[in-house]
């Protein structure tokens, strides 16, 4: 038998230690393979780093550097400066990490790099909490969510704060490309990575990535729950090119109610327990409806 040359060669080698049902590892693999081997990845601390580079192994078949939680953007600035010296202008430089990195601890440093206009593709694996440290709330955690630092009790309904609108913050920096996606539609994510790769300047993609243990979701529902986030309007999927809304993923005509999305996840289970919780569910439905209106998702 003739052995065919492996067609399915992946730039992400086997051996990661991510959980079953991890959305991040799927998105990461797709992103790197879409960008190709002329890519340098600067990663933040978090699940995307810990599950991929356990010494002496590494899943990355492209150059990868991890320095700290908050600084991959300025590290990438330095990498870019050297690529310029070496006249290598055909290399994709990627900064990736979790929502804790993007929404909170790295925000100022990313803002600096966005302002400098560094030619970097930023990919945020948004699992809506600090998952690598065991699910504490971040600036991305949605209202109502149970996290270890916003535990629901008989006196509390979980997180009381709204999710930060990071795409709007990115847009306020004048980024030429800002998009959201979910692991519920990977081909959409892939197309966005492809499109972003062809644009020069700072580009931001925020991909909604299920965290099975952190959200208390059955691994078999990992993709379904991400799809429902989009279909309910809770997680609007859109694309801004040069500051203009250029495309959106429509919600189905029979738009599912937010309960359909919530009921699959342990992190929202307590909301049904009391009046406060039910009020939050109402607020979430209102938020979803407003998103549909704001981005024209119908």
């Amino acid at each position: 038998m003739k052995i065919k040359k492996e067609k399915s060669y992946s730039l992400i080698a086997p051996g990661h230690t991510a959980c079953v049902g991890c959305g991040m590892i799927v998105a990461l693999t797709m992103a790197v393979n879409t960008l190709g081997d002329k890519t340098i990845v600067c990663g933040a601390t978090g699940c995307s780093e810990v599950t991929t580079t356990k010494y002496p192994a590494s899943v990355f078949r492209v150059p990868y550097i991890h320095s700290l939680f908050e600084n991959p953007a300025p590290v990438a600035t330095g990498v870019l400066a050297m690529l310029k010296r070496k006249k290598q202008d055909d290399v994709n430089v990627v900064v990736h990490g979790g929502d804790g990195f993007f929404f909170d601890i790295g925000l100022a440093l990313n803002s600096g790099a966005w302002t400098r206009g560094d030619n970097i593709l930023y990919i945020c694996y948004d699992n809506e909490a600090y998952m690598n440290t065991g699910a504490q709330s971040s600036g991305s955690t949605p209202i109502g969510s149970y996290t270890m630092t916003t535990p629901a009790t008989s006196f509390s309904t979980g997180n009381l704060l709204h999710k930060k609108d990071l795409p709007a913050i990115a847009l306020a920096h004048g980024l030429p490309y800002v998009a959201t996606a979910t692991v519920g539609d990977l081909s959409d994510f892939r197309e966005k990575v492809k499109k972003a790769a062809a644009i020069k300047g700072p580009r931001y993609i925020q991909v909604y990535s299920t965290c099975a243990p952190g959200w208390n979701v059955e691994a078999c529902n990992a993709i379904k729950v991400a799809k429902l986030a989009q279909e309910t309007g809770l997680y609007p999927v859109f694309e801004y090119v040069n500051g203009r809304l250029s495309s959106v993923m429509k919600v189905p005509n029979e738009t599912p109610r937010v309960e359909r999305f919530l009921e699959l996840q342990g992190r929202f289970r307590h909301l049904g327990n009391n009046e406060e919780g039910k009020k939050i569910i109402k607020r979430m439905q209102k938020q979803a409806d407003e998103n549909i209106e704001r981005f024209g998702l119908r």
Partner: protein
Amino acid sequence: MKKCIEGSEAVASAVANCQPDVVASYPITPQTHIVEYLAWLKNSHRADFEFIQADSEFAAASIVQGAAAAGGRTYTATSAQGLLLMMEVVYATAGLRLPVVMTLANRAVSAPINIWNDQQDAMAMRDAGWMMLFAEDNQAAVDLHIIAYRMAEELRVPAVVNMDGFILTHTVEPVDVPSKNQIRQFLPRYKAAKNTILDVNHPVTLGAFVTPEHYQEFRQELQQDLLAAEGLFIKENKKFKQVFGREYKSVEYYGAKKPEAVIISFGSVVGTIKDTVDELNSTLREPSAFTSVSADKHGDKRERINQGDKQGDRGVGVVNVVMFRPFPKKEIGEVLNGCEKIAIIEKDIAFGSTGGLDLEVKAALYGKSSAEIKSYSMGLGGRDITKEEIRVIFEKMLK
């Protein structure tokens, strides 16, 4: 050729002549003149490097880290609060084994806020895994940067050159800034070893997640390579002398041949101590003065040490610690051999303990010396250390 220029300009010119690829920084007094001058050199096409004004010191340190990880020769400079903000990156740069070179224009740390010179900031990074050199004057500041690049690139260990804020950075004195061509004879073009940098043709992972099975080995290796800097400094200074006609020792001694009392210090205050040493030695060597100071309980011992010596060999001296990391234990021991009275003057304090230099000297002399060692943390926040104060310290030792 010597030129009368400001310390910051001298260091900036020397760094530019080392031909770095990437310079990144953030403003903080008293470091600012250095990077302003570098920006001017670049914008007037007198030097060719990428200059990035960062959005914070944290970013500046990360930018040079990234550039070094991609194979570049890099430079940054900061002071006090800037260094403290950088600190997490400072540790990671050493851990990633990147040959970044930094100037620390030494300044007091907040609170209370104070922009003047001391060396508390330097002590904050002493355990980070960097080589640490201290300049006594602006010529040393210039030369130590050139040596720092050579050693950092050889050992893959970052290096910081400390120069006292204002006292050196803002002082105009005659300095010889070596030309690019001269420097090239000592410091070759930097070429990072294969598989140690980010290169799409040879993909490697830098900064992996390391479990207890392997972590300690990484740290041990850093320690070994950092310790190797002690020998390398001696070796490189032989070459340095051939090219530039000057040389440095990790521990330098100035004063009487057989000193009765020695002050150990570092940085620019060494100059003031040298002056005091000269003055004291000229008085001490008047026969009457000398006998009067030696009439104390250590007199006998000192007589023995000095037996057969010429009167002119006696007196006091000063030890200048040029290399603080790695700490040159052996050299310190050799230089202080036989001296029974030692004082340490330093512009820093290890709160809850003593001074940073004091800790090192005592550890280095443990089991080798029975000397009495006095420790003085002084001159904090820019307060002058005067010759008078130094003289009093010597006199107390000699009593």
